[in-house]
């Protein structure tokens, strides 16, 4: 599992330095694929729960979410470059410091060295880097990337737990919520156009209109 986790960490970090929206989406897709691989290595038994896990990790996280967003950006002819964090030495150093913090935190939470500690470290660094992206970017696309990175980090941490005795209804609900969230992000990117930067706030109050 360590190899997959190291690959996951690289996939988390690379899109921060290679500032194109394609890299960000590829990063998301690879995170989903690596989680699917880790889940497969954990043990795969054909069941409805396993099918749902495949739908979640492979279909939604690896394929649908990145492809849906990719299609919108291609449609809008978005410029190639998209910085998810500020392109300077300070923010890159900060990102690497967050990774170190994640590893220290994992050591505190799981003292025994091994795959379990590594998984926690990678998941926490995914979470912290997702929060970094979310807090330092103002463009809607980058913020969506930040939110989806956080979702993936939580899914990775869940993979490390023993199988929770959750009902299928709960699993279906979680999957439906994720899919609907991706749908909402797509809708917003389609309707608000500008991918890179936020539109200026309206200086004046919107014209008077009748509303509910």
């Amino acid at each position, binding site marked *: 599992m360590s190899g997959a986790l190291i690959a996951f960490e690289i996939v988390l970090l690379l899109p921060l330095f290679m500032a194109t929206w394609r890299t960000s989406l590829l990063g998301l897709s690879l995170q989903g694929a690596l989680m699917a691989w880790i889940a497969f290595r954990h043990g795969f038994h054909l069941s409805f729960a396993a099918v749902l896990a495949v739908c979640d990790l492979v279909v939604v996280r690896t394929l649908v979410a990145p492809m849906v967003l990719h299609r919108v950006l291609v449609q809008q002819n978005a410029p190639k470059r998209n910085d998810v964090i500020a392109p300077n030495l300070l923010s890159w150093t900060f990102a690497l410091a967050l990774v170190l913090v994640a590893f220290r935190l994992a050591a505190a939470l799981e003292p025994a060295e091994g795959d379990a500690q590594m998984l926690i470290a990678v998941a926490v660094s995914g979470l912290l880097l997702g929060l970094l992206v979310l807090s330092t970017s103002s463009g809607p696309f980058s913020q969506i990337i930040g939110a989806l990175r956080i979702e993936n980090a939580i899914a990775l941490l869940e993979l490390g*737990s023993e199988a929770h005795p959750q009902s299928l209804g709960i699993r279906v*609900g979680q999957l439906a919520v994720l899919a609907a969230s991706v749908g909402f992000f797509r809708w917003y990117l389609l309707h608000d156009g500008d991918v890179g930067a936020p539109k200026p706030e309206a200086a004046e109050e919107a014209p008077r209109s009748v509303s509910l």
Partner: protein
Amino acid sequence: MNPVYLSLAPALLAPGVGAKAARSVAPTALAAIAFLQAAVAVFVAFTTSGDHHLLGGYLTTDATSRLFLALVNLIFLGIAGYVWQRARTAPELANDVSRFARLSLLFMAAANYVVLSNHLIGSWIALEVTTLAAAPLIVRADHPASRRASFRYFLFSSVGLAIALLGFVCLARSLELEGRAPTFFLDQLSHLPHASNPWRRVGISLVFLGYGTKLGLAPMNSWLPDTYDEAPPSVTALLAAVQFNCALVSLIRVLQIYRADSRDLVATELLVGGLASMAVSTASIIATRNYKRLIAYASINHAGVIAIGLGIGRTAAYGVLLYVVSNAFIKAILFLTAGKIHAHYGTKDTREIGGLVKDLPYSGLFLMVGTFALLGFPPFGSFLGELIILSGLVRGQQVVVFVLFCTLIAMTFVATGRAIFPMIWGEPKRRVSWPKQTLVAALPKLVFLAALVVMGVYMPAPVNDLFRAVAATLGAQ
């Protein structure tokens, strides 16, 4: 069939009521369904006793569920009444009403599930569904700012709820560490002894941070003013008075489980978060000249007071509940009134409005009474609630928090009065012709007002028993 299941029925009725063919009857159908829902909720709240588990243990009818089920459905009845009245006076809103009916019924089914849920992840999913249903409702045609507000609302909510989910994963890990099988059922969790371990500490802090985002607690509060300002008044009332309480119930559930073993758990986080929220909102109230935003900032202030009350627990528990319920009615009254005022004057600037009492007597009256209730004046329930929380601070020897609390409340009072009172009693700035306001249109808000006064003056025994039962689960003595 248990009548509790009827609380989930709006999800099935939503597509029919929101269909194009049903557009002409949508407002009436919405009001009728809301009335039936409120009747069922009140029936369940005051005729059910004890803790019954339904739907394979996923739902519960304990005191917390019953109190909040009645509250959110009564609020929704008021909102549906307002929408019904708006549809009658503004026929051009037919499309908006139809969309509102469809999504708000879905929203209410999910909201009812949240308050009835006996499963942490189940209630989390239902809370996400309320967010997904509310986000499109915030959007108004030809208002790009409302689209941005909707995105911001959804993004913050998603991240907040993701953090809460992460907290649940950590709590499951803490059970594994204790050698137990992870579970998310509230009744099972509440019977387990919880040993202190880092996973549990981190988990509860994350849950607090996640649900605190939904409640609009600082520092994750920046989505709230934009959203409440841009959304139509009926949707703002839905978010501020219904969804707020759903998020609060979710947080209270976690406190109910884990407080039993460790009373001071997250108390510091709750007190600090509460005071920070009050400070942020007070500064914003002083700066703003937009009355809808002012009420939104006051909501952040209220969330802060509630967090402080939950942080103290024990002696303040009853007061917190009184404050929460009063607060829901106050926000519904004020946001619906703000919608009426905006529709009348076409501005949200407090400096451009004056003499409301003469120009729009009902709206002027509701703004006046709502503001007094908002500021915690007697004889409203909010006054009594705030008083109990303050006495809890004194008994808990939280002198610094007490002083800061009183200072911030006093500043909020002055800033709110300075902005709102000239709107009510000042010289009329301009007169706009407007059809006479009817008593029927004001009825939902009058009922809310009556409830506020009743809670402050005389609490009927069955309601009091319900409050006491919920307060006991929060450690009330």
